[in-house]
């Protein structure tokens, strides 16, 4: 069969789908049923998506800012790791490139810092 290399992939899809369906299906039977207001809210995260609260549904943006900044540095680490592993073969070129990359990230960092993105209030 020419399709044989795809068989494991199909199996993988089947497993993934089965797991997803099973998790949803089994939860009502296994979970304890203790309902309260917070439990019934969508997402259980403290933000009511609907109806909008008085004042236009404003939510504090600070969490998001911090989270986004974290992701920026998170991704930087992901790039740094393979570079560090093959530092020897990349040589000076790789070193300069990485300096440029870090420099660019720090420009964004400087912008956030100077414009008050790091102040909590």
């Amino acid at each position, binding site marked *: 069969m020419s399709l044989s290399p795809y068989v494991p992939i199909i199996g993988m899809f089947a497993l993934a789908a089965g797991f997803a369906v099973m998790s949803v299906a089994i939860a009502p039977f296994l979970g304890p049923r203790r309902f309260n207001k917070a439990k019934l809210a969508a997402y259980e995260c403290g933000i009511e998506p609907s109806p909008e609260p008085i004042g*236009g549904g404003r939510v504090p943006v600070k969490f998001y800012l911090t989270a986004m900044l974290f992701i920026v540095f998170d991704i930087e680490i992901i790039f740094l790791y393979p570079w560090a592993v093959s530092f020897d*073969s*990349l040589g000076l*070129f*790789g070193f300069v490139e990485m300096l440029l990359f870090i420099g660019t990230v720090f*420009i964004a960092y*400087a*912008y956030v810092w*100077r*414009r008050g993105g790091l102040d909590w209030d």
Partner: protein
Amino acid sequence: MEDLSLPKIDYAAVAPMLILFGVACVGVLFEGVLPKAARRVTQLVLALLGLVAALSVIVWQSDTRVLTAGGAVAIDGPTLFLQGAIIVLGIMALLLIGDRAMEHGGAFVAQAAITVGSEADRKQAVKEQGATEVYPLTVFAIAGMLLFVAANDLLTMFVALEVFSLPLYLLCALARRRRLLSQEAALKYFLLGAYASAFFLFGVALVYGFAGGVEFGTIHDSVTESTQSTVLLYAGLAMIAIGLLFKAAAAPFHVWTPDVYQGAPTPITGLMAACTKVAAFGGLLRVLYVGFDGVAWDYTPILGVVAVLTMLIGAVLAVTQTDIKRLLAYSSIANAGYLLVGVLALSKDGLSSTMFYLVAYGFTVIAAFGVVTLVRDADGEATHLSRWAGLGRRSPLYAGIFTFILLAFAGIPLTSGFIAKFAVFGAALDSGEAWLVVFGVVTSMLLAFPYLRVVVMMWLSEPGESTPTVSIPGGLTAAALVIGVVATLVLGVAPAPLLDLTTSAADFVR
């Protein structure tokens, strides 16, 4: 572990992009460190200098024909021409973006996060200076477009696509007035743009599955030589085309265009209508001419249908519009159709005439949106068509300029619009695509009607109570208008030099 071989990079060839990315980063830094009062002038000068420097490098490098950065970037005739076009049109758009003479604080909101309609919002609308982040964002977008037209593999192309799209999504949301409309536009553009990007990326994956590589050279070779099933190839090409046609505003992927053109700040609309169009068609040309030219016979009828549909929808729906920005949006859709006709000529003439069309249309459309920024009342721009009635009596000069621009859109002879249409239709006919030309001619006749309706409205109606005054443009807008109008006229009367240039630039490297 095996040794990594570093890609060779021709720094001079990619210098325009490096300069602009550098300028944009420095711009972001300036936003952080400079005092508020000094930012606008510094940013504007920095951005303009950067663009001029990049343009100079392109002119200086105009004989370069190389593949560089490990084959990821192709610097050849079309790349250099389109990059130059994007920069020149970008400078014009930047002039519109930078002007603050018509409205206190410029066309942009001071703080995008202020609640719409709140007291703070009303205060910012009349008092505060607009955000200066627009300058680095614009430069990022332009730099992304330069990379997009130079990209020689699908992944670089995708990265470039995102680099120039993301700043545009943001810029769309930054209108000073009618902020809900602006934010809605940005969100629609973002969601649908992300949707289209997903198509593009999926297409890249499928093509990779077929060709075993993402470079256009590799794809070209396997298209012509491979003996395996071509399902992946066709499905992938279709999806890549969808991603590009979305940016080009071709039907049925045009749905975002009217809403976004209407809601975005007008200078940004100008930037999108001119530069994004150049970039999108630059990318499409390279994909179709370099990567997939081996299956040209197969995709021509399908993209031909898309082109016909695009021309029809743009032309017919332009007739019913009542808002000048939406009218120009549908006209932009129809023009995407005419450009597709040029692309589908699939010949050297097709390439050169499409490039000519892009430049000619870009100059005219930025000037058109420049005039739109001038017609305003107490609530900002007056874009409803009924408000333009009698404008010719109030302000003959600007109504005259706009009339000339509309005549150029309508393809009336002695304007660049006529030459551009003539060139693309001629090229398509040479390649035997007569049916596209017939549709093109018929729809362009139809499209002339809404334009002339505006002309008649401006000149032959009495100005009413609600006819707004026309602001005196600031020096920057005036400069952009002069460039646009002069270019439209010169390219209409003496197009030979630019046609020569496009012809000599019309060779891809593979």
